[in-house]
């Protein structure tokens, strides 16, 4: 990756427009000027097994029928549908592929009958964690994962994504202890190494088949941190810093050939867009059904797709929850696109309102503010490898938060300020050299047996 940002001026950092446009599915163009809704959904409470499989199918039929009908009614110009497999559906690939086919067929028909432009993103649930410690590159679960990947083009997927879990063995522990070194190890060392292996594999398949390799999400790390912070378990400043630490890890997918749109739940998206120029999917207030967050508006500021993260197929007073989300996404996108139709000045106006409405109130929102994203991205790409980049990410996020809370630009709670100091001190003790960090981490008794170094090429 070149050491310059793909977007280095704030006036070029816009929603709906990305330096590299992704074209896929039925006439869908992502990052070409319009923000596109991305709808996500999951099953209500039910068991997935042979006995219930018919019922599972019916659920997905009901979901997609409701969603497509509403999208047509609201004249949604383009639609991205994400189907994320549940563990059972990765572990029996034909199940995951059957649902994929069902959705693709319905979307095809809707395109033919009503002209609804759409693309289907298949997100493979990473099941490698079923082994403890996980086998990342072999064994049954890796085989299952590859099985669904290999069938995805034929089943009608237009894009492939994954929320990979390499490094999560350390990540949870790092979070609850606010251990920034262990977080960097989990994301910037283990996560990055696994991503390199995994995404090399994915893009290889995509190159053969024409499916678009889209992106990965540090969901299990940075979103877990966000949820813990919302529950007052960990300081928000720590969650904010973990978010920025996740950037170099997610960049690895793009270096391996991922083209975007990045995953909706990868709130690190704005960094990926600035650095690599890929279009990004984001979620915020639209995803309140899936998790509460302090970044409901700012997350929208430079998005190219706008998503609801996920909602079960349960009945609301109006309709089933996925249809409700479809409607909300459609209206959010209408607003952004109407402003965009007036030109760049209007995009910037709305972008800045979205950003300003959240960013002064929470450090997690502040690190997503477009200006801050550019400032920190610049520092991240000056580094050479994911470890150094992650270290720099943590340092710059910490510095920026300290500096700008002093200047009153971002509000940080009294009892969180000391955490910024503590994190800064932790960061000072971390070695500049990755090998040394690995050495340190391998020696920590609490991590012993949790992960298999060889699975990460260590």
């Amino acid at each position, binding site marked *: 990756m070149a050491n310059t940002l793909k977007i280095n001026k704030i006036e070029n950092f816009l929603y709906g427009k990305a330096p590299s446009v992704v074209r896929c599915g039925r006439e869908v163009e992502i990052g070409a000027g319009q923000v596109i809704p991305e709808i996500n959904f*999951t099953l209500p409470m*039910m068991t997935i097994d042979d006995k219930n499989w018919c019922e599972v199918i019916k659920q997905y039929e009901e979901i997609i029928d409701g969603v497509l009908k509403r999208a047509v009614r609201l004249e949604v110009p383009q639609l991205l549908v994400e189907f994320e497999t*549940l563990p059972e559906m990765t572990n029996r690939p034909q199940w995951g592929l059957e649902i994929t086919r069902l959705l693709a067929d319905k979307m095809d028909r809707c395109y033919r009958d009503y002209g609804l432009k759409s693309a289907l993103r298949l997100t493979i649930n990473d099941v490698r*964690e*079923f082994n*403890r410690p996980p086998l990342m590159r072999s064994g049954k679960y890796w085989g299952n994962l590859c099985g669904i990947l290999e069938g995805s083009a034929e089943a009608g997927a237009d894009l492939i994504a994954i929320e990979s879990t390499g490094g999560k063995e350390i990540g*949870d522990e790092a979070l*609850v202890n606010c*251990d920034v070194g262990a977080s960097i190890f989990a994301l910037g060392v283990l996560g990055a190494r696994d991503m390199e292996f995994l995404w090399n594999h994915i893009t290889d398949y995509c190159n053969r088949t024409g499916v678009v390799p889209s992106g990965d999400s540090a969901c299990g790390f940075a979103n877990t941190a966000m949820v813990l912070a919302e529950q007052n378990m960990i300081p928000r400043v720590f969650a904010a810093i973990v978010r920025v630490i996740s950037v170099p890890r997610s960049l690895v997918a793009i270096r391996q050939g991922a083209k975007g749109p990045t995953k909706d739940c990868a709130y690190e998206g704005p960094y990926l867009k600035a650095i690599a120029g890929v279009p990004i999917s984001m979620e915020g207030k639209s995803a309140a059904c899936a998790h509460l967050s302090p970044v409901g508006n700012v997350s929208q500021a430079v998005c190219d797709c706008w998503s609801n993260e996920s909602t079960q197929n349960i009945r609301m007073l109006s309709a089933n929850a996925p249809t409700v989300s479809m409607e909300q996404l459609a209206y959010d996108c209408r607003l952004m696109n109407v402003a965009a139709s007036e030109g760049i000045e209007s995009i910037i106006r709305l972008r800045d309102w979205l950003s300003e409405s959240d960013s002064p109130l929470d450090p997690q929102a502040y690190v997503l503010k477009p200006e801050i994203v550019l400032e920190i991205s610049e520092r991240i790409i000056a580094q050479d490898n994911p470890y150094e980049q992650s270290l720099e990410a943590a340092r710059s996020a910490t510095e920026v938060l300290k500096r700008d809370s002093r200047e009153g630009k971002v509000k940080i709670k009294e009892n969180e300020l000391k*955490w910024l100091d503590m994190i800064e001190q932790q960061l000072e003790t971390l070695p500049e050299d990755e090998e040394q960090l690995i050495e340190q981490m391998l020696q920590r008794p609490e991590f012993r047996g949790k992960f298999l170094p060889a699975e990460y090429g260590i």
Partner: protein
Amino acid sequence: MADMKDLADAIIKGDMKTAVEVTKKALDEGVEPQKVLNDGLVAGMGVIGKRFKANEVYIPEVLIAARAMKSAMEVLEPKLTEAGVEPVGKALIGTVQGDLHDIGKNLVIMMLKGNGFEVVDAGVDVSPDAFVEKARSSGAKLIGLSALLTTTMPAMEKTIQALRNAGVEAKIMIGGAPITQAYSDKIQADGYAPDAASAVDLAMDLVVA
């Protein structure tokens, strides 16, 4: 003379070294183990627990305190056993079959330990049969089940049925993002906790009751 207030403060600060020292000193001076436990360790954890609930401190600080307590307990436990003092209770905690989420479960485990529970971690993706077996082998008085997916919630019900059918008499509490009190009532769990902190309160209630 060993001051129980100093011991409590050491716990609050997570000062493992001082906690162990004061505990040893107190025992050497003949302070009753039960008093060391209650007025020192439990009192300290009580303060940190209150501060956590008031959002004054965060979980890492609770965990540091819990680790200090654990170290002191290693010194204290033999004396407590000698004196015939029982631990609060033994708990078995795990994530149900098909579900890999462990952070919620792990938080509950850490907080129970910090409150004097002996805890067996059953791990994740635990089948109903495995739960039954671990319940028997551990003799736990309390079983905690966690599920984070709507599609693994039914495994919770199956696990409870398996435990009851096997004659396991432990109290069963459940939790996880999609779980509600109504669901808990429906599958006849003994209790539901919406978060890790309330899980501890619930555990106390269930075990004392």
